[in-house]
């Protein structure tokens, strides 16, 4: 059974529910069940939080190193350089998110225009 197997109007929506909604929300529900057993001051929560943070950091690295769409055609060195400069600007210029975004975007766009 693929996306194009049935021509009925409801088939794509059922496909989205079974292949998209179910395998996504099932993890959220399991997360609720696990999180419900964790006490707020326990070491287990420190572990869960560390794993979740490292994972979100992995998502960030993925978006920079292996992006999809138009960004994928730019040089990886440009993206890493722009991100590193933006983050350094965040750390050393008053910890403002907007500063990091502006510095990184400026370098990225300049690099794209010059290449």
């Amino acid at each position, binding site marked *: *059974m*693929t*996306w194009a197997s049935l021509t009925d109007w409801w088939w*794509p*929506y059922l496909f989205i529910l*079974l292949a*998209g*909604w179910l*395998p*996504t*929300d*099932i*993890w*959220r*529900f*399991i*997360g*609720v069940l*696990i*999180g*419900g057993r*964790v*006490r*707020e001051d326990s070491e287990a929560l*420190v*572990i*869960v*939080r*560390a*794993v*979740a*943070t*490292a*994972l*979100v*950091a*992995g998502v*960030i*690295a993925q*978006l920079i190193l*292996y*992006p*999809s*769409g*138009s960004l994928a*055609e*730019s040089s990886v060195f440009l993206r890493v350089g722009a*991100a590193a400069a*933006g*983050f350094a600007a*965040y750390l050393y210029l008053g910890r403002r*998110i*907007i500063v*990091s*975004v502006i510095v*990184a*975007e400026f370098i990225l*766009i300049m690099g*794209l*225009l010059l290449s």
Partner: protein
Amino acid sequence: MLASILMFIAGCMTDSELPSHQAEVADPRTGFSWFLSGASLVFSVPALILMTAHVGFAGFASENGVSLFQATFMVAAIWALPANIVLIGAISGGYSLLGAAIAVALSSIRLMPMVAAFVPEMRGSRTRKFTLLFLSHFIAVTAWVIGMERLQHVPRNMRTSYFAGLGMTLTITNTLVVAIVYFLSADFPPIVFAALFFLTPMYFLASLWGSARDHSIHIAMISGLLLFPLIHLFAPAYDLLLTGLAGGAVTMGYVRWLPKKSEGR
């Protein structure tokens, strides 16, 4: 602006109670009022960045032959941008239903530890499990980062209302964004999309660092950033999950063996 003033007031209120478990004392603001403060975050910078990412998604969906209603249904039902992109990739690759479901499940496993860390932050002492299961649908990276930063300043028994406002408004707004952009078939030069796609990681990078309550979060973040490319080389299908586990292990090693240095925050 109004929201940040309200946040400040809420912050003062919770700080005046010593243990956070006892924050369920008389609160002059109703649940609905907290719902609205959560909803007002749709005008924040991270919410705008998420909308730009969905502008890109609408274009991606229409390029791959997914209809307007199917694309908007995906955004509302799945509410995780990477899972949506994986699903469209699987559809255009002609995957079977099972193959597509497995690919999506792998990209969505990350939500499990994220939700598990979020729930103790969000629940009050009388929160029903059903409420948490329902609200968990609205937890994705952006709402997670905003929630981990702001929920600590919201009285505990108002946190589910606050997050309901934030999460549901973000989901509904972005569903509408996809519908409108798709309908207008708005087209931008590639450099605009490239710049828009770069906003998300930069915002996450700075806000995740800034919202950390102790040093262990910084260690977790750095290890995740550095381990991901390495792990991606060896196990691309499980890269995010393994990055989470390995980064978590590094962090716990740090907490265990260097405990004194990071205390006092």
